[in-house]
């Protein structure tokens, strides 16, 4: 059985899914009996999940306008991009 301090040392490996079966068992055992650490890990995982749900941002209209003009200038210089 490991305590909260020892769990902290294994946390990065746990979250990166890089622990050995033995260490994984120790972490799971601790989390099952320690609501505080379980809540901490859950909130950490929630932060990771939220980041992955952030939407891509649309390119501002003015930037698109400038890009089209820049590509037009490239074409005028003899460049072809179809």
């Amino acid at each position, binding site marked *: 059985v490991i305590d909260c301090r020892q769990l902290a040392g294994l946390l990065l490996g746990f979250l990166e899914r890089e622990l050995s079966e033995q260490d994984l068992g120790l972490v799971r055992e601790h989390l099952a009996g320690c609501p505080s650490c379980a809540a901490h890990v*859950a909130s*950490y995982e929630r932060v990771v999940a939220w980041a*992955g749900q952030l939407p891509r941002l649309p390119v501002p209209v003015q930037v698109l306008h400038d890009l089209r003009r820049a590509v037009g200038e490239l074409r005028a210089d003899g460049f072809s*991009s179809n």
Partner: protein
Amino acid sequence: LRPRGEPAREQQLTAEQVFREYGPRVYSVAWRLLANDADAEDVTQDVLVQVVRKLGTFRGDSALTTWLYRVTVNAALAHRRKRAQCKERPLSEPVARSLDGTDRAGPVRHWAAPPDEQALSRELRQLIEAAIAGLPALYRDVYVLSDVENLPNAEIGAMLGLSLPAVKSRLHRARGLMRTALAPHFEEVAG
């Protein structure tokens, strides 16, 4: 089979297709790394013009995507270095007050609320974006590329010139900082 929304690559992309398919990716990475609208716009324009110029040299979408990230990150880091003082995107007052913990009267939610309550609302997105912008740059870079863009740690290390352990260490620290920044808005559910 190919990923949903991805066009076949038998034919070379047009400039308009590049802007539509890759523009939001480039702009999002630049905006989150630089935390500044104007700088992100400059980087986006530079990168997409480069892409259009080099379109004929790519073989397959994965090669283009990998190259795109590298060029975008390089351009963003170069832009940041050029700035004597990095202009951070100003936060709206409510978000700023929320982040510095002076607004404790806002809604408090459970970290582990049911999944159907966890879709990112506009308010939550604002909080997360502001928390990302508030990260120190060395942590923000790794966090954005890993947890937002879902790039492999080894690839992130190659882009940023970091060892794999350094990437993991910064990522762990960044996630902890994000958790700390968002914690005032949520309550623990532990007994």
